[in-house]
């Protein structure tokens, strides 16, 4: 204990001569450009695949019919309705969106008296942030639903020009697994869905050639991941 310990606390008084640090107008403070705020959905771009509903760990998203949008080939006619009483703003729905139609604005203030209004369909129920340019958008080079389509091999033009041999060579087992893994099981017809359905309907005997059957996994499809040790000791991560 010293004289300094008695006098030093009084230096706090210097703050009397400082400007306030509080935000002058907090209600109109703009959020950061990447802010994860209320959702936006481009309903013309959306195909209603329901992948956002599948990945939402809070069960905040329901796919609902929308007036004016008909079911057609490649479009379920449904659009995501989000319950903001459940949403935790994690943006996995934005990351997983197959058409990148679902994004988040940087709007975070919205006042209504009726709690039911906080369950709405972005892009259909008009909101003031619908045209906001800023907010969280999934980078175009990042996908959490598998990588790009495995290219199917074909015969070279020189070979097939005077031949009746099947031009398209099909997938190998490994390529088929990768391609099937990209399927999000949306129910809408596409080439990947056909591969996935064929893989799921096949039996272990038909999935793997007899010569490779002994070494091939017999369980359901597994993503192509690097081999890992069965048990790991504590590590530094």
């Amino acid at each position, binding site marked *: 204990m010293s004289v300094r310990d008695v006098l030093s606390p009084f230096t706090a008084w210097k703050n009397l001569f400082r400007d306030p640090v509080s935000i002058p107008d907090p209600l109109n403070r703009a959020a950061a450009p*990447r802010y994860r705020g209320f959702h936006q959905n481009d309903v013309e771009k959306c195909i209603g695949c329901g992948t956002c509903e599948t990945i939402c760990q809070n069960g905040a998203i329901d796919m609902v019919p929308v007036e004016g949008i008909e079911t057609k080939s490649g479009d379920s006619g449904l659009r995501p309705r989000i319950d903001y009483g459940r949403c935790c703003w994690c943006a996995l729905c934005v990351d997983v969106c197959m058409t990148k139609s679902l994004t988040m604005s940087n709007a975070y203030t919205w006042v209504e008296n009726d709690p039911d209004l906080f369950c709405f369909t972005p892009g259909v129920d008009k909101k003031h942030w619908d045209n906001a340019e800023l907010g969280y958008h999934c980078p175009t080079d990042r996908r959490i639903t598998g990588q790009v389509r495995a290219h199917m091999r074909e015969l070279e033009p020189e070979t097939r020009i005077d031949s009746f041999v099947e031009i398209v060579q099909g997938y190998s087992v490994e390529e088929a697994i990768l391609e099937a893994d990209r399927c999000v099981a949306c129910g809408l017809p596409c080439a990947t869905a056909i591969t996935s359905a064929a893989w799921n309907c096949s039996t272990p005997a038909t999935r793997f050639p007899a010569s490779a059957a002994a070494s091939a996994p017999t369980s359901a499809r597994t993503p192509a991941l690097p081999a890992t040790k069965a048990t790991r000791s504590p590590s530094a991560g």
Partner: protein
Amino acid sequence: MALYTPDRSQYPAKKADGTLDIDLASGKYLKLWQGPNHPGITGNMSVELTVCGDEVVEGKTHVGYLHRGFEKLMERRSFIQCFPIVCRICVPEPDFNEYCYAAAVEDLSGIQSPERANWMRALILEMGRINSYLMYLGGQAGALGLGVIGQWTTYARDLMLDRFEEMTGARIYHMFILPGGVRDGLPDGFDQRMEETLREIESTMKDVHDVMFHNAVFKKRTVGQGVIDPAWLDQYGVTGPNARAAGVAKDVRRDQPYLVYRELEFEPVIGHDSDIYTRSDVRRRDLLMSVDLIRQILAKMPRSGPLIADMPSMLHWKIPRGETYVRGECSRGEYGYYLVTDGSGFPRRVNVRGPSYTHAMALLERMIVNINISDVAALMVSLHTYPPEIER
């Protein structure tokens, strides 16, 4: 503590089984609940005190006010769906949950996060550490009546929350560290704004040093009080600043370097007196070290390159059978995730090792005996505990 007397005649005798013989009907003792709604408690927990006069003769920690069953919830969610949950296990410093969970998943699935992502992770972890310490300093001072310190540190923390917001898109639950990497890189002009924030924090810390650490009242009530015996460190699993204030340089960042800490220059901050004052001072100096680490990270980190590894489809992601434990040094001590997988798309078992569990339960119950009621809050805050870690 201030009224401590060596006269033990007023204290209850011990029974054969080691418990205290407390006869409440005698009128000599009183049950006093501190918490769960009490300004002198760290978050939503409570301490059941048995007092004799002003002196505590027994204390029991009670939790359960926050229980949401995170570990169990994760057993019914896919690996990517667990990612938004884990940050809620520690509100003031959520990033260690995100990092430890991601590192455990990567370890078992054999995925290597890119180097740039590791630098980003180290940056966000150090930013979170500063935030946590700022909140602590306000709480520690507030527990002893120095309310103005909390206002200053809240201002400094708010500036850091602005940096979090522009970097991650959220202020509190950042949800930025995905398994495999991070969500995004640094925004334009981030370095300059971060430097301004760090300077403001350093300025605030100078004021805190003058008003809190050179303060006769604060010293009178903290120097020599709430001492953790170095012999208890291993017995109770004490880690972090609580251990370093006792002179033991335990720091996972140095002992088992993770992410990019091998490439950073730092020495664990230690103290020797192991009392409340020393623990506060160790955290203050550790905060300033984190400021220096952030400057080092921003100077050394690569500005281009992938931010996330090539990942399988997260919707069908199955991780082979295995188990792992990963750890990191958070602001309270060693944070660890024990993860068991069984080859399915869901974790078989997740166990979160939060340092608050040991500090706020076993250690606090031992240290709280024989202190004055008015010092309970200061002692509890000095252990720097966050209740959600206790009841995951």
